[in-house]
C-alpha cells in the first residue's frame, strides 16, 4: 500500500485531467511538465482547491476524498506554497506567519520558530509584505506554510515568478527543507534544473495525464518516455565526494559505476552529492582513448538507443557499472561507430554539474 493514493478526473472545457497515482509518503516528489500539462491542477486537487467530479484521495490511511467523503481544504493537514507568495498585505510578516499557526491548534510539527530559522527570515518579522523583495516574500510564503505544521507540503512552482538571482537565493533553503523535513513534499516544476536538484521522485505529466512516475534517477534515465527535456536530457547520479585535488581545484565524485572529476566547489570529502550529467556532454568512443582534453573516461556498454527530438540526433543509453548514462550523438557518428546494444564503449564526460 502506498502512502498517498490519488485518483482524479477533472473535466474542463479544453482540458481533461485524468490521473491515477501512488505517491511516496516521504521525500520530494516533483510533478514535472510543461504549462498546461495539468501539474498545478493535480496539486490543487490534492489540496482540495479543485473539486474533481470523480476522485479518490487517501493520505496515509485517511480518506480525504471519495464518493461519499469531501474534506474541505481548511481541514486538510497540508501546507501550500503558491507560485506568487500571496502574503496577506494587511498583516505584518509575523502576522502572516501566525495566521495559520494559530489556527492549527498547536499541532505544529515544524514550529514557527523552526520555520523562521529554516528560511532565514528572523530579521523581517516586523515588516509589511510590500516592503520585501520577491525572494524574501517567497521565503515567508514557504515559512508560513510550514508554520501550520503540515503533514504534507504542496509547492506550486515557488520559484517560477522569480528571476535567476532570487532563485539562487531560495534554492539553498529548499535544499535544506529537503534534508530536514520529515514530511512528503509535492513540488510542481517545469524546470529540469530544479527537479534535478530537489526531487527524489519524478512524476512526468503531459496533457493532463501521467506519462512516467518513479524514482528520479530511474525515471530520468528512461529513453522511452516523451519527457520533453530538450537540451536538458540527462541523468542524475547519487554520489559521494571521494577526493579533493587542491592543486588543480578539482573534486572526484564516486558513484555506483565509477568516478568523475569536476570543479571543486568546496564540498568536503565524504559528503553526499548529486551529479547531473547532461546527454549533450557525454560522447562515446571505441578502443583505447587517444590524447584528449576530456578527463573523465568510463568503461560502459551500450544498453539501448532511442530517437531524439531532432531527426539527426540519437540518444544512447549506456550502462556504466550499476548506473546509467545517456549520450546524445548524431546519427551519422552512431552509424560510423557501429553503435548497437551490447557494444562496449568508452564513455567520455565533458562536464558534470555538482549539486549538494
Amino acid at each position: 500500500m502506498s502512502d498517498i493514493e490519488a485518483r482524479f478526473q477533472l473535466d474542463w472545457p479544453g482540458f481533461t485531467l485524468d490521473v491515477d497515482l501512488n505517491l511516496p509518503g516521504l521525500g520530494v516528489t516533483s510533478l514535472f511538465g510543461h504549462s498546461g500539462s495539468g501539474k498545478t491542477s493535480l496539486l490543487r486537487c490534492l489540496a482540495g482547491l479543485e473539486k474533481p467530479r470523480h476522485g479518490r484521495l487517501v493520505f496515509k490511511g485517511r480518506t480525504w476524498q471519495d464518493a461519499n467523503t469531501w474534506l474541505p481544504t481548511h481541514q486538510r493537514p497540508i501546507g501550500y506554497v503558491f507560485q506568487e507568495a500571496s502574503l496577506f498585505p494587511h498583516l505584518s510578516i509575523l502576522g502572516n506567519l501566525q495566521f495559520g499557526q494559530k489556527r492549527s491548534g498547536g499541532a505544529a510539527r515544524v514550529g514557527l520558530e523552526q520555520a523562521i530559522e529554516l528560511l532565514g527570515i528572523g530579521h523581517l518579522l516586523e515588516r509589511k509584505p510590500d516592503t520585501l523583495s520577491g525572494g524574501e516574500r517567497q521565503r515567508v510564503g514557504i515559512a508560513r506554510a510550514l508554520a501550520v505544521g503540515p503533514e504534507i507540503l504542496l509547492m506550486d512552482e515557488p520559484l517560477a515568478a522569480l528571476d535567476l538571482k532570487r532563485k539562487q537565493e531560495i534554492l539553498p533553503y529548499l535544499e535544506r527543507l529537503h534534508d530536514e523535513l520529515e514530511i512528503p513534499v509535492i513540488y510542481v516544476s517545469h524546470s529540469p534544473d530544479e527537479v534535478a536538484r530537489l526531487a527524489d521522485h519524478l512524476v512526468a505529466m503531459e496533457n493532463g495525464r501521467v506519462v512516467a512516475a518513479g524514482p528520479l534517477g530511474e525515471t530520468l534515465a528512461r529513453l522511452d518516455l516523451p519527457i520533453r527535456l530538450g537540451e536538458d536530457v540527462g541523468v542524475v547520479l547519487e554520489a559521494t565526494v571521494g577526493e579533493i585535488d587542491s592543486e588543480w581545484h578539482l573534486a572526484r565524485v564516486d558513484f555506483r559505476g565509477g568516478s568523475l572529476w569536476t570543479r571543486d566547489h568546496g564540498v568536503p570529502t565524504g559528503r553526499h552529492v548529486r551529479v547531473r550529467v547532461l546527454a549533450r556532454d557525454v560522447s562515446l568512443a571505441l578502443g583505447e582513448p587517444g590524447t584528449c582534453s576530456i578527463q573523465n573516461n568510463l568503461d560502459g556498454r551500450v544498453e539501448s538507443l532511442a530517437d531524439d527530438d531532432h531527426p539527426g540526433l540519437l540518444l544512447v543509453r549506456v550502462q556504466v557499472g550499476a548506473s546509467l548514462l545517456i549520450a546524445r550523438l548524431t546519427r551519422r557518428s552512431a552509424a560510423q561507430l557501429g553503435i548497437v546494444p551490447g557494444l562496449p564503449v568508452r564513455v567520455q564526460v565533458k562536464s558534470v554539474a555538482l549539486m549538494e
Partner: protein
Amino acid sequence: MLTDSDLQAIWLTIRLAGITTLILLLIGTPIAWWLARSRAWWKGPVGAIVALPLVLPPSVLGFYLLLAMGPNGPFGQLTQSLGLGTLPFTFWGLVVASVFYSLPFMVQPLQNAFEGIGERPLEVAATLRASPLDTFFSVVLPLAKPGFVTAGILTFAHTVGEFGVVLMIGGNIPGVTRVASVQIYDHVEAMEYGDAHRLAAVMLIFSFAVLLAMYTRRSQPRREA
C-alpha cells in the same frame, strides 16, 4: 442663522442617514458578497434589481413602497399583524424606503471591493486552516476596508440627499419625516429665500466635504504586496 426647525430637520436627516447606513451595512454586505462570488444564472437579474433605484424616478419607487407598506399592501399587513401599525408617514417608514433607495450605493462599491480581492487570498486562508466564515472576518473584511468606507460614505450622503421618496412615503411632518431637503422645499414654497439659502449652503458644504474626503483618500496610491 438656522432656525430651530432647520436644526430639527438636520438632526432628523442625520439620524435617518445614520440608521439607514447601519442597516444597509448589515443587509448589503451579504448581497454584495453573493453578487461578487456567485456564478448562478440569476445573479444578473438580482444585480439589475439592486441597481434599479439608480435609474428609477424616486416617485415611482416611493409609489410602490407606499402601496406595499400601506394598510392593504403585503408589508403593511405584516406590520399590522405584528402590532406595529402601518409605516407610511412615520420615521421608520422613511428608514425602510431609504434602505431600498440607497441599496445600490452600498452594494456596488462593496461588490467591487470583494471582486477586487480575487480568489487567491481566500485560497491562501483555506490552506492556512481558516474556515470560510473565519476567512471572511480575518481576510476579506480587512482587505475590503476601503470599499466599506466608500460604500458607507456614499450611502450616508445619498440618503441625506433624498427628496422624492421622502415626499411620497413620509410627507412633511415636522420632527418625524421633515428632513433637510424637504425643509428647503418648504422655505422656497413659502418664499423664505434667506432660510432656504442658509440650509442649502449647509447641504452644499456637507456634500462637497464628503466627496472631497473620498476623492483625496482614493488618490493616495496603494502598493500591492
